[in-house]
Structure formats: C-alpha cells, structure tokens
C-alpha cells in the first residue's frame, strides 16, 4: 500500500538553528531518504518552500478568489512529504517514527486512495 507521510513543523525553528545544526538536520533527512530508498519503499519526496510563498485559491459565495498565504495558519506548517510504498499501516508507522520530522514536529500518515 502507498502512504503519504506529511511532515509538519514550526518553520521558525529552522531559521533559529545555527549553520552546524542545519547541516546536521539536512544530513539526518538525507540518511532517512537513503534508508527508504535502500528498503525499496520510497516513491517520492519533496521539501516545500516556507508558507510565506503559499497562495490559496478558494471559492466564497460562488466567486473564486486568489489569496495570499496558506490554507490554515497554525503553529506548525506543512513543510514536506514522503510518498512510500509498504505492506501495511504498521510498516508505514514505523517509517514515520524514524523520520527526523517526527523528532521536532508532527508526521501525519495517510493512505493513498487507490483507484
């Protein structure tokens, strides 16, 4: 089954980190991605630009509007994702728990709607 791991974290946390800390953070994500690849579980993954770059389209009262900013303003923001292919939810959860994002934020696990 395919699962999308959605990584939420406080963006401000990243900018507050020292250069060395950021490098260490990068390295952890690289290692994690590599491990997923080696296990044959990785379908794709991406990091997202900060929410300051987000634009939202929504329809209010039948009229479509383009708005500056993300869909929801919250303490944690969606910052990236992994699309993985594993046998079941337990396998997906165990990958989610290893994700560096689970150490400093939240990882939501969502099964993909198979067509």
């Amino acid at each position, binding site marked *: *089954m395919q*699962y999308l791991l959605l990584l939420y974290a406080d963006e401000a946390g990243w900018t507050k980190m020292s250069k060395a800390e950021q490098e260490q953070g990068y390295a952890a994500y690289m290692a994690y991605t590599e491990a997923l690849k080696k296990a044959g579980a990785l379908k794709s993954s991406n990091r997202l630009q900060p929410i300051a770059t987000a634009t939202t389209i929504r329809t209010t009262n039948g009229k479509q509007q383009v708005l500056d900013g993300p869909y929801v303003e919250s303490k944690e923001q969606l910052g990236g994702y992994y699309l993985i292919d594993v*046998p*079941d*939810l*337990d396998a*997906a*959860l165990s990958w989610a728990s290893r994700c560096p994002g689970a150490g400093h934020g939240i990882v939501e696990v969502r*099964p993909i709607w198979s067509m």
Partner: protein
Amino acid sequence: MAATISGDERNLLARNMAEAVARQSYGKLVAFLAARTRDVAAAEDALSEAFASALADWPKNGCPANPEGWLLTVARRKAIDMLRRRRHEETVDEWQTMSDSLEAAENNGQIPDQRLALMFACAHPAIDASIRSPLILQVVLGLDAKAIASAFLTSPAAMGKRLVRAKEKIKQAGIPFVIPEKEELPGRLDVVLDAIYAAFAEGWTDPAGTDATRRDLTEESLFLARLVTDLLPQEPEALGLLALMLHAEARRRARRSEEGEFVPLAQQNIELWDSGMIREAEDLLKRASAMGLLGRYQLEAALQSAHVHRVHTGHWNWQEVVQIYDALLGISSSPVVAINRALAIAELDGAEAGLKDLQQLAADPRLTEYQPYWAARAELLAKTGACQEAREAYDIAIGLESDAAVRRFLQGRQSALKL
C-alpha cells in the same frame, strides 16, 4: 420401529449445529475471511449469508462433516458474487486467491485460528480507543450493534455508524492482521486486554443481572479473556486479567440481597460465592506470578484475592492490601486506585489517616463528579464523627450514583448518622 427423523427435527438439528458453530467459531471464520483483504465488513456480510444458506441447506442435505469449511466456502463464493455485483473486480482477485488456503483448511478440517490477530487489528493504536472494545465484541463474537449500544449506553444508530467507520479504517488505512513482534507485544497486548476489561466492566454495571444484554457481556468478555490466555499462555497479564474477572464474577450472586439490596463485601454471604471460579482465579494468578513480570491486572487480581482471603479466614491483611495499592500506584497514577488506597489506610491507621490521604486527592478536578470519591469521603468522615460534613458528602455521592440499590444503601448510611 426404525427411527425416522422428521422435518422439524432436521431443522432443529441444523439450527443447533449452526448456532454451535457461530458460538465457537464466529470470530475464527471472520478472521480467516478478512485476514487477506482486511475487509471486515465484507467478511461479516458474506458469513451471515453463508449462515442463512446453511439453515436452508443443512435440513435438506444433512449437516456437513466439516461445517466450518462448508461455511467458509459458501461465504467466499457469496463475497465474490457481491463484489462482482458492485463491480469491485480488483478485490474479487483477492477473494479468488483465498481458495488454496481454503481447500487446505477444508481437507484437514483445520481452520487456522487468526482471532488473536483480528483482535490486535481491532485494538490497533490507529483505532479510536473508545470503539476498540465494541469492535472486538462485534467482529470476534458477532454481537450486533444494538446489543453493544445498549451495554455501552449509546444509541444503536450511533454505535452502528462508529463500528462501520472503524472497519473502514482497518481496510483503508491498511491495518495489518498480525500478532505484534516480541518487543512490541506487551504494550499492544495491554490495549487488547483493556478492551476486553472494558466490555466486562460494562456488563458488570448491572450487578443484579436483570439486563440480559449486560449479563451476556460479562460472559462474552470472559470467553474473550479465556481465548487470549489459550492463545498466549505465556503472557502473565492475560492470565492476570482472567483471574481478576473470575474473582469479580465469582461474587456476583452475593453482591445483592434477595430483596435486591446492595451488600458490601464484608457483609456478603460467602456461601454464595462461586468457589470453583475463585480456585481457578487463584491458580491463574499463581501461574502468572511464576513468570516474574508484574502488571496492572495481576495486581488488581491480587487485591481481589487478598479481600477474598480476609473475608474467608478473618485474617487481618490490610498491610498487604496497602502494599498492593502502592505497587499499582507505581504503575499508573490512577485516582481510583488512590481512593481505594486511602480506604485501606483507614483500616490500617484509622479514619483520620485515610481522610488525610483522600484530602490530597481533592484537587483533582476529575473527582468532583466521581461517586466513589464522595462515598469514600462520607464513610471516613462518618467514622471520625464529622457528621455534618459526612452528610454533605453522602448527598453528593447519592446524587452521582446511577444504580438504585447503591443509592438506597448510601441513603441508609446517611440516615444512620447521628444528628
């Protein structure tokens, strides 16, 4: 004269056979049918159609030698028909591939028992905690939403919806039907045990046994607890839970007088206790403690054992009781345990000491609506002679109690207070 079996008798025979299989193997059949597809709802639907076919077929053609295999074969065919009608071709394949293992099962008459894996799926951390227990009752035992709803005091419609949603989650989220690995097992098993105990506690809230659905629930949860201990005989907490439940069940008949009045433990007629159940509970507890891994259910069973022992022998053992409460508090900081410990302290060091301990809990906002806290407080206040305060505490305890017999008991205690 040769005995010929009439049509009525054949019908009865078939129904008895079907009922016996349903009672003994319902969960086993659901687990087998759902293990691969994870589609519990489809497995249940197919199985109920298979049972209907059995009631039509068996009186005519005689009961099959291997009724479980018969039911599985028919259920599988029904499921495939159903999925074809709904144009779910991709899931049809999954049901088709089941035929190999089914044939093997039919030939040797052995259906692999995956009930435990099914229970672990129902009590998966991804399933909402409050629905785990109802889900197990439905999926493993085949209880309908109406019976479960009445035991859990919710509407059948709401319960039905929540059960459907939980089964959807198992399927869509891909919750596996597996017994967790060794290192994960104790934590995951605790959740299964908690779900079984919750079902038992719901049944237990009707101590007079007048509500048939609740009465059934205690029997069903005992069945589940036995099943877990049969399948995992080396797990001390599973043994502990069964021991705890047997201890409680053993005293059922003594908890109410013939007039339906509440009888506290110390005044119970021990002739009414089920000594067979108590013996079994004690044996289980011994087996569990030999495994050297203490847990909540073993401790709670040990408490029951200590209470029973004291009433039986008159041997004053409150010291031991307090020690068990301390061990329980070491595992979880439950206010319920703390209240009972305070009552035990009162037996050990006097009412003042117990009251002092109880006072320390008063800040917990959960307790303002918790009847046992107010009943305990009232009892201890009464013993210290603080009659006015005791009366007020009794008022709150009575107001919070839903069981009429306990309410009358508390009212009796209240009116016995000196003015």
